[in-house]
């Protein structure tokens, strides 16, 4: 499989207000087409920053992001983002169905097909009954699902999700996890999924990238060698699942303590600190 997403030497330094924060400190990784990769890392380590750079919403300080070989300088077509601040990413003046339909309209999807996509996406996230409601009439978890429905109705080739299940209850969360896996398998979409939840990362992903504390680097990159057919009971009871979870947990703890990733002899030398 060819790499659809290549992140090379990505650095992002926030400057302003007399503060200088190096959020992302030299990231290198590639994601092959059709992979479901999960990113875990401690809070404030730069996950959202990374995702925004990948989405073309923010210019990195140095380094580059390439999508299908093309450098990303602006939001590319065929990419959808589910933002961490899901509530603020919905149009309060539009109904739920119109929120989902708006990007499709802008993309030029014909009316009948649009209606079908909206109907199906809302059914997928269990919100068929809420189509006519306004976002502020829904609970936080339901708003989150509207944002997810909007992203999947868009039928992107690359889907970026920033802690999309943070506001939903455990039961809905399990359902949405299976929904994302189902959609991923059905649509062949490449998914970059940010989460705090180690269990979720291992359950969902084909691969888990553990990020270090800010300025973030790749602390660990492990393949999740669980069977492709997963279900909440048997997969989570699997011995291999427990092993993987323990390993990711240990790496995240190490990242929180501020341990730097072991220098990779094959990697280019890090720039000397000034």
């Amino acid at each position: 499989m060819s790499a659809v997403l290549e992140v090379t030497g990505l650095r992002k330094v926030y400057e302003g207000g007399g503060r200088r924060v190096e959020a992302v400190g030299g990231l290198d990784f590639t994601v092959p087409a059709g992979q479901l990769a999960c990113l875990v890392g401690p809070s404030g380590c730069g996950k959202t920053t990374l995702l925004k750079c990948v989405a073309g919403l923010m210019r990195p300080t140095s380094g580059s992001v390439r999508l299908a070989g093309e450098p990303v300088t602006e939001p590319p077509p065929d990419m959808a983002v589910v933002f961490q601040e899901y509530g603020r990413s919905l149009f309060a003046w539009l109904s739920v169905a119109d929120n989902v339909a708006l990007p499709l309209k802008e993309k030029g999807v014909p009316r009948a097909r649009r209606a079908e996509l909206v109907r199906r996406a809302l059914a997928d996230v269990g919100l068929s009954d809420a189509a006519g409601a306004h976002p502020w009439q829904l609970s936080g978890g339901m708003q989150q699902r509207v944002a997810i429905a909007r992203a999947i109705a868009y039928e992107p080739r690359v889907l970026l999700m920033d802690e999309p299940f943070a506001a939903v209850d455990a039961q809905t969360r399990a359902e949405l996890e299976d929904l994302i896996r189902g959609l991923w398998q059905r649509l062949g979409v490449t998914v970059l999924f940010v989460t705090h939840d180690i269990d979720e990362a291992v359950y969902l992903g084909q691969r888990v990238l553990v990020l270090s504390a800010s300025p973030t680097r790749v602390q660990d990159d492990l393949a999740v060698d669980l069977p492709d057919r997963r279900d909440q009971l048997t997969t989570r009871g699997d011995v291999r699942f427990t092993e993987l979870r323990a390993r990711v947990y240990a790496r995240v703890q190490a990242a929180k303590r501020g341990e730097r990733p072991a220098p990779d002899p094959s990697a280019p030398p890090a720039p000397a600190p000034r």
Partner: protein
Amino acid sequence: MSRGGGAAARLGRRALRVCALPAGLVALWWAAAASSRSYYLPAPDAVAVTFAEVWFSERILADALPSVVRLLAGFALAAVLGVALGTAIGSSPRLRAFTEPVLEFWRAVPPPVLVPLLILLAGIDDAMKVLVIVSGCVWPILLNTVEGVRAVDPVLADTCRSYRISGFTRLRTLVLRSASPQIMAGLRQALSIAIILMVISEMFASSSGLGFTIVQFQRGFAIPEMWSGIVLLGLLGLALSLAFQRVERSVLDWYHGLRAATRGE
């Protein structure tokens, strides 16, 4: 029966609530007029009779209608101008930096201060009068629009960018809609300024209009007629304000719902 009766009773109570204070004030006016017997303070019934005599005639077409037309034309022009300029300034940091000092100045100037200047400008023709109205009421619209456009939520702006929603759709569905509460607040202020300026522009150097007529009556010591003109102005203001409320309620339906939801109903 009981439901219909209940509804009628509710309606009756509501009518009572709405009318109680105006009725009380008219009664007070009556008492004041009767006790003072002042030439300048006619009783309400005299004013009502005069009102019918004066305004249920071709005068309503000759004097009231041109006023209303100028008022609405000036208000509409100011709305278009204020929203267009405000959107441009609010969207561009460079344009904002350039215009900021001037805008700050206008924000600090209360509109009535402009009246003497506008009187000088208010010529005899319609265009001048409309211009006076526009120049007075464009400011609250402009300033509020700038504020509203600046306050567009960055997450929502990023959402539009990532779904490649741009140009006219972005303007219509993101910028203007999210600024609409401020724009409506600006329009509301502008409407009352527009009424004031309409009257003022007609009181000087004019040959028609409500303001002109009221001043004519006053100069001719036609006191009940003068009062009837003032009443008509009040009714006009009330009608415009009610119409505006209706429009606002439908435009900002979502906003009131959102506010209620975040306050916890």
